[in-house]
Structure formats: C-alpha cells, structure tokens
C-alpha cells in the first residue's frame, strides 16, 4: 500500500435475506494495480459482497464509492458501465449462442443499427487470445463446449468489456491445470496494466501465488485484512472457520485383506474413443481415487458404471458376478446398489424448486413404499437419520432446496443417495465450490461409509483431496489408466507427474484441443 486513494471503497454494507444476515456492516477497499483475495467459508458473505459490487443485489444499508464518488448500481449492466465486471461462479454464458455472440453480448459492435459480425468476430478472437484460449473457435456454440472451455470463454468475455475492476468468483474451479497457469499469467498482466482484481478462491496455493492483499470474511463481516504472505495457511484457515483447524482428513485405516472378491470390478471398459480399455477393482472398505488432468475420461468412467453411456464395451462385475447396467435406475437397484454423486448438483443432483424432504426421498421412494403408497413414518425416520448424520443445516424440511447454501445442497445430494444404503458409491468431484468446514465433514463421511463396507470411487480435481482421502489413486490420461498409485506413493508430485508426463508439452496441448472439440 503506497497510501494512494482506493479505486473502490465500500463501508457499512449490510444485507439480509429474510431472517438471515448475509452481510453485517462489511467494509472493503480495492486499490488499482493489485490483486485482492477474499477468503471465507461458504455462507461467510463473500458471494453477497460480490453481488452487491456487481449490481446484482442492492444492499440494505451502507455506501460505495468509486474514484471517491458515491455510486449505486441498479443492475449488472449499470455496474458494467462503471467498469466493474464479475466472472460469476454460476456461469453467465448463453448456451444456444456462439462463443463470439457471448463475448460481445453486453455491448455488441454495431453498423447501421445492426450487429457487425465481422467486428464481433475480431473482438472475440482478440479476447480469446488475451485469455490464452485461442483453441476455442468463435463460431462454436457454447452448449457444445465442456465446462473448462466455457470457463475460459467466460474469462474472455469479461476481458472484452475492458473492466477497471475485475472480480473472479471461484473462476478457476472448473479449469485444467494448464488453463489455470495461463489465466494466472493473464491476471498478473492485468495487474501490471493497472486493473484492480478481486479474487475469490478456496484454493490456498492459488491465493499464495497471486494475491497482494487478503481479506477474510466470517459471518458476514470482514474479520481481518493483511498483506499476502504475512500469515501462515493455518492462521488463515483459523480466521476463516473461527476454530482450531487440524486433521482435515480422517486417518486411513490399514488396508484390508487382499484376495477378497472386489465389490466393483471393471474389465476392459471402452467407449466411443473416450474410454480406452479400463480395468480396475475396488474392494469393500476401499476408497479409490481417480486422478489426472480434467477431462481425461474420469467423468465418463463414472457414467459408464452408472449405466448412462450407450455402446459401452467390456465387462462390469459386482461381487464377482457380471452385471449389465442399462440405466441409472438399474444401477441403483438393490442388486447392484450403486449411487452416483454428480458433479453438477443443480441439474443432475437436485430439483431446486422442490422441498428438501422431496429431494431427499426421490431416490429411495421404491424402498419406502408399500404397494405404491409411501410410508410417511418410515420416510420421516430415514430423513431424520440423514439430516442428523450429515448435519444438514436447513430452516426446515419443507423449504425449497434451492434456498440452502452450496455446501448444504451438496449434503442433500449425498444424503439422498445414502438413503438407499448403497454399497458402491461413485463421487464426481463432490467438493467443488464447497467451504472447508463442509469439505472436512464430507471426507469424514466418506471414510465412515468405507469403514461400514462401501466401495468408493472418488473423482476429484483437487490433488490434496486425493492424497488425503484415497487408499489408491488411478491416474487417467486420454481415457486410459496411466498409473496406479498406492498408499504412500500418492503424493502431489507423483499425481502431477503421472498426469502430465506422457509425451511432455505437445501431448498436453493436444489433450486441451481434444477437450475443446468434444
């Protein structure tokens, strides 16, 4: 800090939703030419703070100044006009429109009152190049791109608006390691150019690399601001959760007896060029991780087990017996007893407008019904068990599940499947965008389920999780199991090395292109 006046300043900002205090007299100052990290658990008020800055919600009280002048934003468009651009965690891209259409969406170039497509194309290409994503074709439809590419388009779109303050809310959560490196380069260049960047992330290593200044939020207040690097990770986490932070991962038990019949086994699974001759086995009580760069077939493998993919070749065995799983309904049937915790809880895991109770019982309705009629008593008992087991924080069972925080929504998804008492649990990156406290609960739950005899296949984009949670990790590359790491072999170095070492740089960039065309 050189004592320069802040570019943007907010003070005494409060916001309530119903009875819930999201922000309570929060203050924040943002300086030009610096990267300011915001930390805090989910529900600490970070999202609301950003929404206030970006004109999505109006604060109940407090004032904001930009260049020393007081401002209010009636809409996201108004905030954009003032130079504040936010890359939201929930993607703001329009699926049926092309990449170029999306990049210029808020202010398309015009000629004679109509959109100038040539100029639009040029702007889009420049913005993509600036974001380091030239592999994305400007005419491709956004809905045809995988999540990681969409995130890059989102970033390009923000850059095309020439922001003065750029807010990134968990912007790297869906990105591949190679893209994260590119984006970091871009962010550092933007800082040189004098932008103010506000960076929200749950990844401490990212914050350590990028941030100049950090502010920690807890319970809707800013509890501490400090220069980056002046506090240890442990101190920061304590500030965030307000309690002693230790043993985030539960201990791993000593491995069980070899030679037992595996609960889940795959022999030579191949599918559509995306899965290549995958064989694996998971025993009862075992947590097996899936590692590797994003988009190497991990998701497809989980979907293959769960009966979602058609034209799958190879064999799946449950308890040593071959089974054919033709649909998620067949997979969750008692004979197989499988559950998949999906990656995108909003579309594949939950029906957001329906109540917590309804969402919880969906997957288990057949078990709770006698002659087609739901046994309300049994339903209630099971739901109470689950809410207790997972410590789901909800104002009631009859409120829409969409009203819960992200972490609690994810708990509902998990509880929903646990109500069937599955023996095989597939997890697809379940902790994305979830706060540390909830993550820790999920890790412990996972181990508890394994100890109770479940076989768990766990895909995560977070290497720390794989290291902390898994008994074994299979590293996938280009749809094939590249390497198996067991016990102490699971280190960050081994994971990254085996995820990348195939043919060095050229193979990596090729895989990125492949992901873009999929």
């Amino acid at each position, binding site marked *: 800090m050189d004592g320069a006046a802040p570019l943007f300043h907010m003070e005494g900002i409060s916001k309530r939703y119903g009875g819930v205090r999201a922000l309570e007299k929060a203050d924040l100052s943002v300086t030009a030419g610096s990267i300011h990290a915001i930390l805090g658990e989910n529900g600490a008020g970070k999202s609301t703070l950003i929404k206030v800055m970006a004109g999505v919600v109006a604060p109940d009280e407090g004032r904001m100044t930009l260049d020393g002048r007081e401002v209010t934003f009636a809409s996201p468009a108004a905030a954009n006009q003032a130079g504040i651009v936010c890359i939201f965690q929930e993607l703001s891209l329009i699926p049926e429109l092309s990449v170029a259409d999306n990049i210029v969406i808020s202010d398309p170039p015009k000629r004679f009152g109509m959109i100038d497509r040539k100029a639009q194309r040029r702007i889009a290409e420049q913005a993509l190049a600036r974001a380091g994503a030239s592999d994305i074709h400007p005419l491709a439809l956004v*809905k045809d791109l995988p999540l990681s590419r969409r995130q890059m388009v989102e970033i390009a779109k923000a850059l095309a608006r020439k922001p003065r303050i750029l807010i990134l809310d968990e912007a790297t959560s869906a990105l591949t390691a190679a893209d994260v490196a590119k984006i970091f380069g871009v962010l550092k260049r933007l800082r040189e150019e004098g932008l103010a960047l506000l960076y929200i992330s749950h990844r401490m290593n990212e914050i350590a690399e990028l941030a100049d200044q950090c502010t920690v939020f807890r319970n809707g207040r800013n509890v501490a601001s400090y220069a980056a690097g002046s506090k240890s990770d442990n101190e920061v986490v304590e500030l965030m959760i307000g309690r002693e932070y230790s043993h985030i991962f539960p201990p791993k038990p000593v491995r069980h007896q070899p030679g037992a019949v595996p609960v889940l086994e795959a022999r030579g699974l191949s599918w559509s060029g995306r899965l290549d001759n995958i064989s694996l086995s998971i025993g009862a009580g075992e947590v097996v991780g899936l590692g590797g760069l994003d988009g190497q077939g991990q998701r497809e493998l989980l979907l293959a087990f769960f009966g979602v993919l058609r034209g799958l070749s190879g064999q799946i065995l449950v308890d040593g017996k071959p089974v054919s799983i033709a649909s998620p309904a067949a997979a969750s049937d008692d004979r197989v007893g499988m559950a998949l915790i999906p990656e995108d809880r909003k579309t594949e895991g939950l029906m957001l407008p329906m109540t917590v109770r309804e969402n919880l019982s969906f997957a288990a309705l057949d078990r709770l019904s006698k002659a087609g009629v739901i046994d309300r008593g049994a339903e209630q008992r099971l739901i109470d068990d689950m809410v207790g087991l997972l410590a789901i924080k909800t104002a009631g069972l009859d409120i829409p599940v969409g009203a819960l925080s992200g972490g609690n929504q994810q708990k509902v998804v998990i509880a929903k499947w646990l109500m069937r008492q599955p023996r095989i649990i597939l997890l697809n990156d379940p902790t994305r965008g979830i706060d540390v406290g909830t993550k820790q609960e999920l890790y412990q739950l996972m181990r508890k389920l394994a100890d109770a005899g479940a076989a768990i296949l766990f895909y995560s984009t977070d290497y720390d999780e794989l290291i902390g949670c898994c008994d074994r990790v299979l590293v996938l590359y280009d749809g094939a199991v590249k390497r198996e790491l067991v016990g102490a072999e699971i280190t960050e170095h081994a994971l990254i090395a085996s995820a990348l070492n195939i043919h060095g740089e050229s193979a990596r960039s090729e895989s990125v292109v492949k992901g873009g065309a999929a």
Partner: protein
Amino acid sequence: MKDWRYWLAEQRGTLLAFAIFIVMFAIYSANHPAGFTANVVQTAANKGVLLAFVAMAQTLVVITAGIDLSVGMIFTLTNCMASWLVIGTGLETAFGVAAVLGTGLICGAVNGAIVIYGRLQPIVATIATGAVYFGLALLLRPVPGGSVNEDLADFLTGRFFGVVPASLVALFVAVLIVWVPFSRSELGRAAYAAGSSETAAYMSGVPIRRGKFLAYTLAGLLAAIGGLFLTFFTYTGEAAYASGNAYTLFSIAAVVLGGVSLFGGKGSAIGAIFGALAFRTIGDLLFVFDFDPLWQPLFQGVILLIAVSLGAFALFRVRNRLEWFL
C-alpha cells in the same frame, strides 16, 4: 472445424425445412394436371403466405422461450378490421392499412407488456388476450361481410411480370424489413439470449425486457400483415373462431417443422416460413392424388410427426444418455 461447418450446424433446421418443402412441392407440381406453371405457383403461394406470416409471428415469440396463442386471433381481428378500413381512395386505403398494422403492433405490445411486466406465463396471458381480440373481432363483424380495396387486393395477390407471385414478394419484403434487422439487432440477440438462458442473460447485462417486448410486438405486426392478406384474398372480414384457432395451432406446427426450438433461443423465421409452406403443401398433395379432403388433418398430423422425428434422429446417435435431456 471450418467456419462453414459451424454455419451449417446453425442452419440445419432451416435447411431441413427447406428440403422438406422442395421435395413436397416437386411431387405436387409434377403430379398437377397443369404442371409447374405460374398459375400453380401463384395459387400455392397465396395459400401458403397466410400461414407463413403467422408462423413468422410465432417464431419471434418462441425464440424468447414463450408461446403466443393469440396470433390466430390477432390475424382474425385484423382481418375484420381491414374489411372496414382498407377501402376507398388511395389515401383512405393507406390510412386503413396503417391502422390495421398499428392494431397488430398494439395487440403484440399488450401481450408483451402482460408477459414481461405482469410476469404472467405466456401461455396463460395469450389465451386470455386471444379471447379478448376475438371478442373485438366479433364486435366488428358479428356476421361475415365488408369489402376491401380490390385494386390493391388484386395487385398484391396477382403476379409481377406475369410470373412472380406478388404475395411471395410481400413475404420476402417482410423478411427483409422485419426479420433480418430483428435477428441482427442487439435487441434481437437479447430475445435469443433470454430464450436460451434468462438468468445468464440478466447477469450479462443484456436488455432482456426490451428484447422480449420487441419480439412480442413484432409478432403482432406480422400476424396483422397476415390478416391484411387474408382480406385481400377473401375480399371480406369474418370473425371465424375455428379458423383463428387453427392458424394458432398450425403456426406452432410450422415453427417446429422449421427447426425452431420450443425451448427457445434457437431457430429462424426463415425456417418457420418453409415449415409453413410445407405444411400447406400437404393439403395440395392430397388434392392432386384425389384424396378426400377429410383426410387432410390426419395427413398433416402424420407429416408433422415424421418431420419432428427427423429432428429427433440425432438422439439415436447419442451415446451418453444425459444428452437426451439437454
């Protein structure tokens, strides 16, 4: 992928509708006793353009992920109105045309205002306004009657240079001055964006409300052009409930045939026009093959099912079942 492949993917629905129409019309004219003559084309065009205008109107609303069940009634109301007003001297006729088109704009704007600012669901809002518009039509024409400036009517339903059907030229002009500017304007894109993902559009600062309002309003205008042409063909006005409703439903069929997604955000009015023309050709096909006209609704239904299934063929190639629901 090359640029042209992206273009092709984008225009697939429109091209498919075009192909269906060409095939059907080729069969029709090959089997017509008179063959492919200017007269046959003119008759076919005059039958087809009415639905084409209404289908264009429906397209604009469907793009916003809405639906307009009042288009047929706007069409009927403006027909009744034209049978009073589009008559007399050149100046009077011009005033009449302006009044009729203005009425269409107002009807569309009312729909838009109710859906956007009243936050009612389009299906409910337009059933209600459709009933109101039909009520007004009944007040104007309790019994069929009236007349129209026949010089203008004959000019616009005849042929230019002896070969080109004037009604097709009018349709082309409507595409050029309504659809093309709309689809390439910022507000047109806002309509598409709102139809595809309204939250994402809002977050991106897109003028959603103005885009949707424009779509509804222009839909009213296009339905009114249809009503005007109905008057030119029939020389009278009639508050025909069944016909109004049929136009509404057929316009939805034409839109689907034309590759416009009922989920919004995707499709083009040009596809819907070919969808409408193809839908109309079904009746003509039955005629040249000497079928009883009573078969017409059944055949239209079957063709519609086949066409929609063609669009769904891609689902057979889907290897990840989750893509069924996208």
